[in-house]
């Protein structure tokens, strides 16, 4: 599970792709996302996935993005199965499953190369309200803390004789209660303490807080932006021209 989730978790890497302004990376990922939705033949999808994998190789994240694809492979099979059973035909079933994989890999390219810090800046730049951005930041920030919390509570309860891996499904579900209750209590205490600490450090005192970092687009970012837009538009027009929708 942990191995698979690595396909969506940021890792600091130096590469020509990671050097891009995070907004440009978002744009490129969004272009692939849209093209994957538009693509009408399996070959188009194969080309798209090929391009995404080439970018992942440049971003030196081929392995991690591969994990994301492996992870979603199960769902892709499911999509294939459902479509096939519904009688949409083999070709369509394959197309839908492949399209799903293309969408996942384009999303994964963005998340693997973008730090939570950059996500925060993008959200601010897009004009999300400050409280929403901050809620997102703290949620991501506390994921590892809460995970650690949970594993410590599990160990503590195990040492008191609680057995998680035994019994029927219902019994196992019931076994989660002694973990969830302290976990929730901890989180409530934590959020109270966080609120005090935020308040003590002037949170909310101005509607427009400043930031230590700035996103600054250089000629390199603009070039990538223009080039990717041109290519994506061309690809989109090609698809539309040969396979008009409806």
């Amino acid at each position: 599970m942990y191995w698979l989730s690595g396909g969506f978790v940021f890792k600091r890497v130096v590469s020509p792709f990671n050097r891009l302004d995070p907004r440009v990376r978002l744009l490129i990922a969004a272009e692939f996302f849209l093209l994957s939705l538009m693509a009408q033949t399996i070959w188009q999808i194969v080309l798209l996935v090929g391009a995404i994998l080439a970018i992942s190789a440049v971003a030196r994240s081929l392995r991690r993005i591969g994990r994301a694809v492996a992870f979603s492979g199960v769902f892709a099979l499911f999509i294939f199965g459902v479509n096939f059973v519904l009688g949409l035909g083999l070709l369509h079933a394959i197309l839908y499953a492949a399209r799903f994989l293309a969408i996942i890999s384009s999303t994964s390219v963005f998340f693997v190369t973008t730090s939570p810090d950059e996500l925060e800046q993008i959200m601010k730049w897009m004009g999300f309200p400050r409280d929403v951005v901050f809620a997102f930041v703290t949620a991501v920030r506390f994921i590892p803390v809460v995970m650690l919390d949970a594993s410590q509570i599990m160990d503590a309860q195990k040492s008191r004789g609680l057995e998680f891996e035994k019994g029927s499904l219902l019994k196992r579900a019931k076994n989660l209660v002694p973990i969830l209750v302290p976990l929730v209590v901890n989180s409530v205490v934590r959020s109270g303490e966080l609120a005090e600490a935020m308040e003590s450090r002037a949170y909310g005192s101005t509607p427009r807080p400043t930031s230590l970092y700035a996103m600054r687009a250089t000629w390199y970012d603009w070039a990538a932006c223009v080039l990717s837009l041109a290519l994506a538009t061309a690809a989109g027009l090609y698809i539309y021209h040969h396979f008009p929708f409806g």
Partner: protein
Amino acid sequence: MSARTSGPGRKTLASVERLSFRYPDSARAAVRDVTLEVGEGEVVLLAGPSGCGKSTLLRCINGLIPHMYHGEYQGRVVVGGLEVAKTPMSTLSENVGFLFQNPENQIFMFSVERDVAFGLQNLSVPREEMRTRVDEAMRLLGVSNLATRAPHELSDGQKQRTALAGVVAMRPRLVILDEPTSLLDPKTALEVAELIGRLNRELGITFIIVEHRLELLVPLAHRLVVMEGGSKVLDGAPEEVLSDPRVESYGVNVPPISRLYTSLARDGIRLPRNPSTPEELAQEINDL
């Protein structure tokens, strides 16, 4: 030794005048009729049994009470000329910093330097100035080399130093610490105590510190205040308060050195003063 002598001549930085506070859902007041003056540059230790109102008093000094916690509030608290109850938290936060017990729950951002900048961002400090102040605070607290680390990649001591850097970056005149070392191992706790001493000497920051491990902080404290049941019961130079016969009945952990001093005195061996470190004790015995 002279650095530790408290006393007259200090300008008052914070004053608590006949303060009482009761939380809305509790029957009795958590702080009762407390009066306390803290001088500029002083290090004041606050001790007393659990539930005696120490944290509540601290919240009253930095403004969490009455701005965040509402309740029955009587009396007056003034810090740096500002009346706490009538000053917005944002202004107060530039004058009074607050370091809490659990470092985990006061680090919000994904990297050390971003977190140190948190308060400054909220105050809309321009970027260049922010950079300078963040770098300066990180250097003072010895976390410059951790600037881009994520919080989950830090030890508890490093987290506590990061949180303190975030407080110091706001350049407060008074810093309040609520059991800052109780979750740290003894060696790391000692490091944090030494940092507090340095910030006090080099930047002249005033400190009010709640701490159970008194032996750690008595060497750098000018004053020791003891509370019980919401009231202030003892207040004076640490040496004096620790030799007071009542002090242990208030649940104060008298450091072994002080206890030795008191029992020596009981046996008729009077040292000139209550020592706070083994070195001082050795010196005094030598001088006898």
